[in-house]
């Protein structure tokens, strides 16, 4: 902002600018025609936001409707709220419990995320705080593995699992998800560790602090939010994964997305149940995603954008 603006409010009468927004006149001056533009932009943004959120809101609303109210044309928005669909999803009449796949998904996502952090944090340390010589080459090697499609490796993995007896074993899936997320985690983590101020590291070295003390007192406080966000993003990617789980698991180790594929073909009136299933299975991702909202871009762009 130019140095002239602070002086401006004193010389101009506050009347006309203050009238339309209640925003400080100084701010209003720095943008062109601020109020009209922003109101229009706000209305447009809100309409589009509602349009984009509509499928999600509809999914949630339908999950609380009875099956007959869910399948009407035109839609019955104000139908009675009921928990029937959730009871059905949890096996009230079919006796099929969704808990084993949900627990499998939790196992695969949580353990692979822990393993990713255990491997990625030291790697990121060797790529930022005490970097090896060709650290950029290593970074781009990690990135290139992320660009290789899963289908290019899935058959050998399937054959290996089959021969080794690891088919339909959740721990094999944990290893797969670890390798799937490791490159993203290394990239994200490096960019977070790189934010640790060098002066502080040097100062602690001069003061004779050991490596562990330095990590705990200086690196951890700066990098902690980043580590948390990385963990959440890895959790989301593992939780969402379908192709590997579909090929490598079966009855025992099937995950929640595999369980959901059981709803692909229509089975009479089951719309509310499908929506309830979608809501329950998406809940962990919704929570993790909103918790990691601020760092989501950085993770999705592999740390290239902050």
């Amino acid at each position, binding site marked *: *902002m*130019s140095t002239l603006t602070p002086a401006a409010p004193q010389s101009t009468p506050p009347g006309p600018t203050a009238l339309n927004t209640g925003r400080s006149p100084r701010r209003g001056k720095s943008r062109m025609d601020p109020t009209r533009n922003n109101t229009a*932009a*706000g209305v*447009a*943004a809100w309409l*589009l*936001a509602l349009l*984009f959120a509509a*499928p*999600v809101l*509809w*999914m949630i609303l339908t999950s609380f409707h009875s099956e007959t109210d869910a*399948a*009407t*044309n*035109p*839609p019955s928005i104000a139908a009675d709220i009921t928990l029937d669909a959730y009871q059905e999803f949890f096996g009230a009449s079919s006796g099929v419990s969704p808990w084993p796949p949900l627990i499998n998904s939790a196992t695969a996502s949580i353990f692979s995320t822990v393993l990713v952090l255990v*491997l990625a944090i*030291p*790697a990121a340390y*060797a790529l930022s*705080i005490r*970097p*090896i*010589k060709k*650290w950029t080459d290593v970074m*781009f*090697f*990690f990135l*290139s*593995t992320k*660009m*290789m*499609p*899963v*289908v*290019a490796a899935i*058959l*050998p993995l399937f054959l290996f699992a089959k021969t080794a007896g690891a088919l339909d074993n959740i721990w094999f899936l944990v290893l797969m998800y670890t*390798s799937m997320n*490791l490159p993203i985690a290394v990239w994200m983590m490096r960019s977070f560790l*790189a934010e640790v101020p*060098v002066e502080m590291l040097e100062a602690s070295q001069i003061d004779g602090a050991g490596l562990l003390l330095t990590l705990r007192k200086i690196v951890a406080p700066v990098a902690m939010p980043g580590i948390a966000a990385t963990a959440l993003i890895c959790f*989301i990617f593992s939780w969402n994964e*379908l*192709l590997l789980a579909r090929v490598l698991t079966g009855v025992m180790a099937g995950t929640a997305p595999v369980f959901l*594929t059981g709803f*692909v073909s*229509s089975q009479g009136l089951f719309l509310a149940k*499908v*929506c309830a299933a*979608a809501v329950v299975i*998406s809940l962990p991702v*919704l929570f993790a995603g*909103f918790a990691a*909202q601020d760092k989501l871009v950085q993770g*999705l762009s592999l740390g*290239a*954008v902050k």
Partner: protein
Amino acid sequence: MTTAPARISPTGHSATRPSRNAKSRERAMAWARRAPLLPALIFVIIVTQLPFVVTLIISFLNWNSLRPDQSGFAGFSNYVEVLTNADLRQAILTTIVLTVSVVLASLAIGLGLALLLDKKFIGRGLARTLLIAPFLVVPVAAALVWKHALLNPTYGLINGTLTWIWSLFGSDTPPQPDLLSQAPLMAVILSLVWQWTPFMMLILLAGLQSRPMDTVEAAQMDGATPWDIFRHLTLPHLRQYLELGGLLGAIYIVQNFDAVFTLTSGGLGTANLPYAVYQTFYFANEYGLASAAGVVVVIGTIIVATFALRTVFSLFKKEAAR
């Protein structure tokens, strides 16, 4: 940031270190630096690179697990088959159409949304949160909701809304399209655009917010119109972010399996390459052919990825220079 590479001391070049001890100590130091990296690196190589090498080998074999007696070296015949088999050729075409249309549409809409969200208005944070929501539904769940709750021709929300709007004008013959059977690829594209627009929006919004505001303000003072500013300042600044979003989006969408599998089960010309590979090895047991198709996906990805890596690299350098 800038200091990170600078901390690599220019060792080895100076002539003042003749002693052997010093050299071996230096080597030990270098390994000590590398040590924390090695577990992650080795793990990734074993789990991702090794299987790909095996895929490459299998792609040159005639191998159907149902006919083990007929297996053997096949040369390039699997590749010839990938490029001549009508279904697989269709899968290649579908992959290209799907990827290009989803990336372009979600980039365009994402840019519009990012420009809107860059302005201040009431409830901006909540609007942003609502816009991210499509990205935070499990992809299979999202595809199921699209298939059953939105696109279903008799009771889906889209046709239901059409009925409601038409009834407002006193008409009882609203259009009731059945996208899933009339234009199934369109249905897949629609659901993917919905899901990927937030991704593009977030990247472009980050780009917009990193825009140097002083130049914009200087241009405004010089009487530039908003269009001038967009055309000559915002768009050039966003170029890298557009490229990044487009290329990363392309890499993810080329691999899409969930939407195709759930919405159409690959029927009616919607099978893309990942789905075709899955079908070929999981159901048809044609291991050699599936591997060749997988290698074709990799070649396609490498072409896109080369550009993607270059873009990421230039952003990375820019950040490193800050």
